[in-house]
């Protein structure tokens, strides 16, 4: 339906709210990338099939239907990420008076859920979220979810990610209606500026200031670009917003376009996010059909077209000037600044370039006002931040917390602590451009400025927890190999410096390091950091420098004692036979491809570590668990 006036959109919203309220029960199946991987599509289909075949259930109902007491009105919806990805497929049963969160739902469970929780008022105990013997009923009872404050992820897990109607019913488009009918563009810029929101893509630059600069340019053709490249490997916040609540992101971009008088917008989506592309395309198509994108939106003078570009697998394209070059059809290489993107961005025109999460926060800021927003988070970093919590942690998943929350709260209260009772060693924050924080940083408030003091960055929000089974030297090598591979090669310090640093790190993990290598790494690191052209090179040495600072002893152990305490570095592992367990069967000697194992049958065997190639063949095949690895 065409919504070409305020009255029309408000009428449609009213109808959608009634439709939402008319249902007795909503079966909300998570269809984030994580849950789909565990098979949630099949769960969705199963519920659809069951609901259609069960007498007494009505699934297609108009909002004004008189309510027949015998008929149960049930809807089945696909939502964005419900958060606890590791326990998927996730299903929520939402009734008028309660919500039940089910985890690890299998096809066989659907019938029972329908009979007991949808049609009756019972709970399928075994599918609830459990921790230390305690079962939790609703999502808001689960500490992982209860301790969050959700703005960007407000609708994720609650509403149908593919339904414009549900977005409207949830209060969506309220901000753009308010802006178009009650606010001048300047007032919108002002509200964003006053809110103090800083860019969520890593840099933390105040969004309002950026918008002001674009609005001031003499050139009248302007663009709004959304950075959905999410390059940090091991982070999925932006993907979750794009696939879980695409309309919110688009509304944020519309507000930016209105504020700076831009006519066209682009969303640049990471290549590996096919679902984000599909959901965004769907959302754009719905909005175009309803007249919410295109010419004279809601009957006003505001016109805005939105386009999608897919990335093609280059991390450096997350950098602003590389990203716009890529949209233009060029190699995605950063350029020297100034001129900055706000003056000469896409096609040399003034451009507002913001991150997905930044845009997703804007509608709530416009709706509730800057003071409300400033009430959340810290003085210098207002608002919330999403993080993806991964690695050696009990509850992996997607979270959103006020800025200034401490690592301790995130890792232990929300994340449930280190996986399988391991010991916390470090957390990598900010991915390959960030650094590691350790035990002694657990009470540092996470906001843009505090974290910087410790040589790390909040970055886009990747948090990878590491325990005693992670080798910090190997982690440094891992990030360096990533940035070295992704360096675009335009400037020498980054191209050559990262290569040299990687060589040294490879040498150290192979047990061939020299003690001088530590100083070489530091010198090279400082050089690349200060001389590289763009943020990729400037930040590439950070993981190395920060592990050197926090875990120097591990570097020294690798170099001098040829020892990897986490038993990760293959070349430093020594395979040994425990004579107590060895039965002298001789199987290991037969399996060893290089003849490193000798011994006497029925007595015991011995591995010559100078011949051993550490292939694991003996250990994999020993029936008595007699082979162990000495670090």
């Amino acid at each position: 339906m065409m919504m070409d006036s305020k009255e029309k959109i408000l009428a449609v919203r009213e109808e959608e709210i009634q439709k939402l309220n008319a249902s007795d029960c909503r079966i909300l199946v998570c269809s984030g990338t994580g849950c789909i991987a565990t098979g949630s599509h099949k769960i969705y289909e199963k519920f659809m099939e069951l609901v259609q075949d069960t007498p007494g259930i009505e699934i297609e109902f108009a909002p004004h239907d008189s309510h027949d007491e015998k008929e149960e009105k049930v809807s089945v919806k696909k939502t964005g990420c419900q958060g606890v990805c590791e326990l998927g497929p996730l299903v929520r049963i939402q009734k008028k008076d309660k919500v039940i969160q089910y985890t690890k739902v299998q096809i066989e469970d659907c019938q029972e859920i329908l009979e007991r929780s949808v049609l009756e008022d019972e709970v399928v105990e075994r599918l609830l979220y459990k921790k230390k013997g305690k079962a939790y009923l609703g999502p808001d009872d689960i500490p992982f979810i209860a301790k969050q404050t959700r703005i960007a992820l407000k609708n994720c897990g609650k509403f149908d990610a593919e339904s414009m109607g549900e977005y409207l019913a949830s209060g969506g488009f309220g901000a753009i209606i308010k802006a178009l009918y009650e606010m001048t563009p300047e007032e919108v810029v002002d509200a964003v500026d006053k809110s103090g929101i800083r860019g969520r893509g890593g840099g933390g630059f105040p969004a309002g200031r950026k918008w002001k600069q674009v609005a001031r340019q003499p050139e009248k053709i302007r663009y709004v670009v959304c950075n959905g490249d999410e390059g940090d490997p091991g982070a999925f916040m932006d993907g979750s917003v794009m696939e879980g609540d695409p309309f919110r992101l688009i509304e944020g971009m519309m507000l930016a376009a209105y504020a700076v008088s831009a006519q066209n917008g682009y969303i640049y989506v990471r290549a590996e996010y096919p679902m984000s592309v599909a959901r965004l395309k769907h959302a754009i198509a719905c909005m175009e059909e309803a007249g919410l994108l295109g010419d004279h939106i809601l009957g006003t003078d505001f016109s805005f077209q939105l386009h999608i570009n897919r990335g093609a697998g280059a991390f450096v394209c997350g950098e602003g000037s590389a990203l716009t070059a890529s949209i233009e059809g060029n190699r995605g290489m950063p350029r020297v600044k100034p001129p900055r993107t706000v003056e000469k961005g896409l096609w040399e025109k003034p451009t507002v370039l913001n991150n997905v999460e930044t845009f997703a926060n804007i509608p709530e800021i416009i709706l509730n006002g800057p003071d409300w927003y400033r009430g959340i988070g810290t003085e210098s970093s207002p608002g919330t931040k999403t993080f993806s919590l991964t690695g050696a942690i009990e509850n992996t998943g997607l979270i959103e917390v006020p800025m200034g929350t401490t690592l301790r709260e995130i890792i232990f209260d929300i994340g449930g602590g280190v996986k399988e009772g391991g010991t916390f060693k470090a957390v990598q924050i900010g991915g390959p451009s960030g650094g590691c924080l350790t035990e002694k940083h657990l009470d540092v408030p996470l906001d843009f400025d505090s974290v910087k003091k410790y040589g790390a960055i909040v970055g886009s929000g990747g948090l990878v927890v590491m325990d005693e089974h992670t080798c910090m030297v190997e982690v440094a090598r891992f990030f360096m190999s990533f940035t070295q591979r992704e360096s675009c090669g335009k400037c020498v310090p980054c191209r050559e410096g990262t290569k040299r640093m990687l060589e040294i790190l490879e040498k150290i993990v192979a047990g061939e390091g020299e003690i001088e290598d530590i100083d070489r790494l530091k010198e090279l690191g400082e050089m690349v950091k200060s001389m590289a052209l763009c943020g990729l090179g400037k930040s590439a040495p950070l993981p190395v420098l920060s592990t050197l600072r926090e875990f120097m002893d591990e570097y020294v152990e690798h170099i001098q004692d040829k020892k990897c305490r986490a038993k990760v570095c293959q070349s430093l592992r020594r395979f040994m036979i425990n004579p107590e367990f060895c039965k002298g069967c001789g199987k290991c000697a037969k399996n060893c491809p290089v003849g490193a194992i000798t011994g006497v049958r029925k007595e015991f065997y011995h591995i010559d570590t100078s011949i051993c190639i550490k292939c694991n063949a003996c250990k994999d095949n020993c029936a008595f668990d007699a082979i162990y690895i000495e670090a």
Partner: protein
Amino acid sequence: MLDQSYYQMTDEIIGRYGKAPASLIPILQDIQEEYRYLPGELLTYVAGEIGVKEAKAYSVATFYENFSFEQKGKYVIKVCDGTACHVRKSAPVLEALLKELGLSKKKHTTDDMLFTVETVSCLGACGLAPTLMVNEEVHPTMTPEKAIELIQELRGESR
């Protein structure tokens, strides 16, 4: 030589985005999606049609990792080696796959053109690390054993 159908397909794809230099990347992406690689002849053809120099088209195509001039297998397996997957031991999964398929870090595609194995830096399902993707489907919480089972399943499917 490519047969005529390739050019017809390419014309259709060009039609989706229009004959403009900025359409280069989306067009190449769709061609790659269609054929699982980028035939060199088509790159030349596209360059001519949308008005960019052939050399420029090549320089763009070689810049982006996702474009491949070599034909890929029926199943393109992308093993995630993002941070979350790496610390949850993705390397043994990759090794197991390479070994099972007789591939190496240099040889990516099996001779029967059934499998291509590559690495990727994050599939967005980090909560379920380690992951891999077969064509567009993400498989969660992999182990070397599960990876080999998956290969056997896919081999069965294609028979």
